[in-house]
């Protein structure tokens, strides 16, 4: 599975990933000058916390959100392994919000559906990785393990060993 890795040494906490996630994924307009005035305000799927750490969904191998979802709306794409919300059947019970250990799931503006990072699974490339000005974010295949010399990237999908 390809996951987003974070190099904490390179992250400057500039929030560019969150801004562009909000524009490209969260907003209706998909354009900077309109998205920033949209009401309800778009919700970015990535949260930049202290400690130079932009937090996305880590698509956990044993995902509590999938287990907690009462009607199978929280699903894993069998091909990519990515966890996503099947919006038409989501009943907004917020069980996933409660069980997510990282707090990355949020209620949508309409309050009718849970929203979370799906690693831009329908796009060619995750927008946050594309816009990161310092290349602190990187898309990486995990099955093959971390390449030589890149162990400083923190994996999203497999917990935070070495964090």
């Amino acid at each position: 599975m390809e996951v987003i890795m974070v190099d904490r040494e390179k992250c400057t906490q500039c929030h560019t990933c969150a801004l562009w996630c909000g524009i490209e994924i969260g907003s209706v307009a998909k354009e900077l000058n309109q998205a920033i005035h949209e009401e309800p305000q778009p919700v970015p799927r990535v949260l930049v916390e202290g400690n130079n750490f932009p937090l996305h969904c880590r698509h956990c191998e044993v995902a509590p959100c999938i287990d907690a979802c009462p009607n199978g709306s929280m699903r894993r794409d069998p091909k990519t392994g990515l966890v996503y919300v099947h919006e038409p059947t989501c009943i907004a019970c917020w069980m996933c919000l409660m069980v997510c250990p990282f707090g990355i799931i949020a209620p949508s503006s309409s309050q009718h559906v849970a929203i979370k990072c799906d690693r831009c699974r329908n796009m060619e490339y995750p927008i946050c990785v594309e816009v990161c000005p310092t290349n602190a974010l990187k898309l990486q295949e995990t099955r093959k393990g971390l390449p030589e010399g890149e162990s400083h990237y923190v994996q999203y999908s497999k917990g935070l060993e070495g964090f």
Partner: protein
Amino acid sequence: MEFVQKKTADSAVESFLLKAAEQGVALVWDRYEGSLPQCGFCETGLNCRDCLQGPCISHPFRDQNKVGVCGKDKDILGVHSFLRLIVHGAMAYFDQLADFAEGVKSGAISPKDKGRSDKVLEDIQALLSNGTAAVMKEFPKGLVDGWKAKGVSPEGIARDLFKVSQKLDGGTSGVKDTLLWAFKAALSGCVAQVLQGRLKLAVFGEGDPEDVEVNLGVLQEGVPTILLCGHFSPILKQGIAEAAKGKKVAVMGVCTDPLIPPYTFAPVTNYGSQEIPIMTGAVDLIVAGDQCVNPSLAELVKQWNVGLVQTEVLNRGGDLKGSARKIVDQAQKAFDSRRKVSKDVPDIKESARIGFSADGLDAKKITEAINKKKIKGLALLAGCNNVKFTQDLEIISLARELLKRDVFCVSEGCASISLAKYGLLNPQNRESSCGKGLSDLLSSLGKDLPPVVDLGSCENGGVTEFLLALGKTPKELPLVACFPEANRTKAVARAAWTVAMGVPTYFWPFLPVTGSPKTTEALGDFCQKVFGAKFNVITEKMEPAEKADLILKNLGRG
């Protein structure tokens, strides 16, 4: 995040893009692409780094931080972003003025008209100390009274610049109040620009419009060539031209006033492509100021073994004429040492008639043509190039549309050079470029008027003098100002004082204020109420014809 597919409309410049890529030379377009995506917070004015507790942002999206550490919210951040640009821009005019005035006072040049020059120097002193410059009396009384009532009339640099700059430090002023302070700074810049123009007239004498050739084709391969780059003391420029005379040294310019009587400095290119003249190999020495000079030149000159003289240095010495002679010697030496550097001068140039003045244009005929509806109105075209647009394309396309639709267009500074490169300042193209009404008016104003009338460099207040000569407050006339490819902070200050004079202004690209709804609205409706004109910040993508439609629709309606 937007790539500009076509980099330039100028074929002379385009031929060098491939060469630059082949040689691995990074130009402005490469650096722009390397900086994408640009910071969205900065682009919309939702950021601040005016103190060391930051940098701060106001996040536009849900559940995110909305205010800076000190409490600046998105609206204050937006209006401060505007103010920051204006203060910087207004200071640029004072910098030029102070340099020139100091040179005149030091006796480095004997003014053509000593009495007049002394009077202008006194006026400059008055502007700096308390704002009571006599030139203010030449502005329409209604306009100045309005400014005084709002407190935005110049009161000396202590209040016009120092006090204004400290609005960024803090305080509890709201959006509208802060905006007025910004306009105050801009207006003082306006008066500084007018006075610099007056000083130039007094010192160098009145100059007639000149025929010049423009674009890279003006460079000569066989003679030592000095390129004057950016804005610096016109006395030094004149000195260089004087020293070069009779020595077979060519002196040309880029982003600088091309007319210092009795000398002309052929504009080699304009802002967007100011790196290209070095790549032709035909420039031996660059004399560079600070304003409007890309720092990238410092590296480029090394690659082409071009000499570089900085004019803005700490220990400059007092002898401008001596420095000028040294510069010419240096150019000759550089030429000798550069004989092996291959030359590649494209055979592309265009004739242009530049340097008209308000005195040379019959204002009565112009207002009459407006009253009789022979022309639809007047457009002021200003600004230089911006890498966010195809170089020159926006301004020439808009100008062509406006000319066709009988709008009398005047231009200044780098905008003129853009237009000149495509023949819009060439009198021969008048009939073919202009609508009938405009063409008739231009012929009645003089034999050799080009489609667009250049009112001189951005160092001098030619456009403001022209507005004053029209004899009415600008808001009584169908006037509009357009900055289709603005770039420098000077252009923002320039646009702001044009609004304060009651001329509706259209500005591209959008200013970093769009994150603040209150600032954007105040630049529109509040400015309309206070000054009778809007500062239109446009975020939508528009074709040139659409822009012309928008401008025509609002011409004369504020």
